[in-house]
């Protein structure tokens, strides 16, 4: 029985073999023929120009994954390089030019034109200009400003000067102290600056005669006398500069100083640029403020140290204010006793 079946199948064997061979040939030919489109798309990942363009733009798609916890980074973050170029190529050199230029101009002014002396002899009669509270806040803010300016300048330029000069050990301690004091005193300065600005705001509302003051360069152009109330045009400009740029510096400083609130890196880059530009500008102008307040004009500094100014000084620099308060003048002898005179109230000084 079995023999019979085998014989009947034998003739089919070559046919089966042929079929198998043909089938094999077909199956091998399939990848070469069918849909090259599909295979081309699978051959390489789609890391094309569009992908890189997107990476560079900083834009993150919904299917972006980063294996680092709390990462706020894209693959490549081009903003970092922009910040570096802005800081190192623009802010840094121009800050130096602004502050250095200011110092040079003032030095030349002092050497060529010299101090602005009082127009006549002192009368010996004094007017209360700055009450104790304002003076205290002013000198605290002023001290903090100088500390912050010096530490800030050290953070920006120190490495070019002090590291080669002192060596790593001293430089390390110096820059570390700069950063710590800058970061801890900054907020204190910010708060006190706002208090000071609020306290002297009433003297600094712009008036019509301020325009005239600026036209005549604060009395430097021509011999003509320029009108000024409690605060002259220049002082008001300094006030409003601090009230605008100063506040920008304070706010951006807070953004930089408190990374614990989780603000992004891009925010901090911009905060840093605003902070640096504003602070360098203010430092340059502050050099002028310090000059005028100290060696630049006779009789100015005592207003902020003792609180009182001489009548002659008041007539010279703040004639409109003098007219208002001249009846409150007190003789010098009364002040030198050391006890406050009866009218050492804020009223006398705050009338503008």
């Amino acid at each position, binding site marked *: 029985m079995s023999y019979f079946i085998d014989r009947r199948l034998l003739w089919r064997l070559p046919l089966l073999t042929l079929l198998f061979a043909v089938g094999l040939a077909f199956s091998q030919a399939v990848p070469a023929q069918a849909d090259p489109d599909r295979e081309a798309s699978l051959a*390489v990942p789609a890391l094309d120009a569009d992908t890189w363009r997107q990476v560079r733009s900083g834009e993150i798609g919904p299917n972006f994954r980063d294996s680092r*916890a709390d990462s706020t980074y894209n*693959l490549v973050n081009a903003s970092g390089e922009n*910040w570096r170029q802005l800081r190192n190529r623009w802010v840094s050199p121009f800050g130096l030019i602004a502050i250095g230029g200011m110092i040079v101009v003032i030095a030349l002014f002092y050497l060529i034109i010299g101090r602005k002396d009082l127009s006549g002899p002192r009368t010996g009669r004094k007017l209360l200009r700055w009450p104790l509270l304002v003076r205290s806040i002013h000198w605290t803010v002023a001290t903090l400003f100088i500390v912050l300016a010096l530490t800030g300048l050290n953070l920006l330029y120190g490495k070019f000067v002090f590291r080669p000069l002192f060596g790593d050990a001293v430089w390390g301690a110096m820059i570390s102290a700069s950063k710590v004091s800058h970061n801890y005193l900054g907020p204190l300065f910010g708060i006190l600056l706002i208090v000071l600005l609020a306290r002297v705001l009433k003297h600094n509302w712009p008036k019509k005669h301020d325009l005239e003051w600026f036209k005549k360069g604060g009395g430097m152009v021509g011999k003509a006398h320029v009108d000024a109330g409690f605060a002259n045009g220049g002082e008001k400009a300094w006030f409003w500069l601090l009230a605008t740029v100063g506040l920008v510096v304070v706010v951006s400083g807070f953004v930089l100083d408190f990374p614990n609130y989780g603000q992004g890196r891009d925010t901090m880059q911009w905060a840093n640029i605003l902070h640096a530009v504003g602070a360098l500008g203010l430092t340059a102008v502050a050099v002028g403020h310090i000059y005028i307040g100290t060696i630049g004009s006779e009789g100015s500094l005592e207003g902020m140290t003792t609180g009182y100014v001489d009548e002659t000084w008041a007539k010279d620099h703040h004639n409109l204010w003098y007219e208002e308060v001249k009846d409150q003048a007190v003789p010098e002898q009364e002040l030198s006793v050391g006890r406050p005179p009866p009218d050492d109230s804020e009223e006398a000084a705050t009338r503008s």
Partner: protein
Amino acid sequence: MAQMKFMCDAERCIECNGCVTACKNANDVEWGIQRRRVVTLDDGEPGEVSISVACMHCDDAPCMAVCPTDCFYKTDDGIVLHDKDLCIGCGYCLYACPFGAPQFPKQNAFGERGKMDKCTFCAGGPADSKEEEYEKYGANRIAEGKLPLCAEMCSTKALLAGDAQTVADIFRQRVVQRGHPDGGWSGNQRRERTRTGQGDDLSAADSLAYDAARQS
């Protein structure tokens, strides 16, 4: 002198995060800091691609340019290292780095961030003793004649580390093998042709597909 570089072959990276783990282990990195990260673009889509990123040891390093303490330096091998004794934790390197390499152990009020930490190419850093070096910066495998552990342990050899010339040679060889007409970065020809509106003449892509599938 060698110019040490990392290169991640995106076509090989399988997002296993072995490099991240190897680095963390080799350098005993502080809790919360991860010197290497793996980024995946278009996760789950047909064009998904992963790349391992850490400090790229730039020729013109932005961190170095902005550091207020000047604590960065470049070794003779082109590795960017920093001195943790000088670092004040201001965060400027973090602002500047395009790759997110510098990290800080803390992020507290008044800018208290602690000392910056980043990939050292397993080359340690300035210290008085080997123990101190390990404590501060992690392993110094370069001193032992070894390459960074992340690259050494990469399971698909996607992450390459070493002299730029050698790395480039290896990658070039791979590109030739794969059949890219113009280097590994051009991407998919079919997509490029569609994007630029050149029609769908796929004669070139056809041979490309064949080359890519060919066993060497």
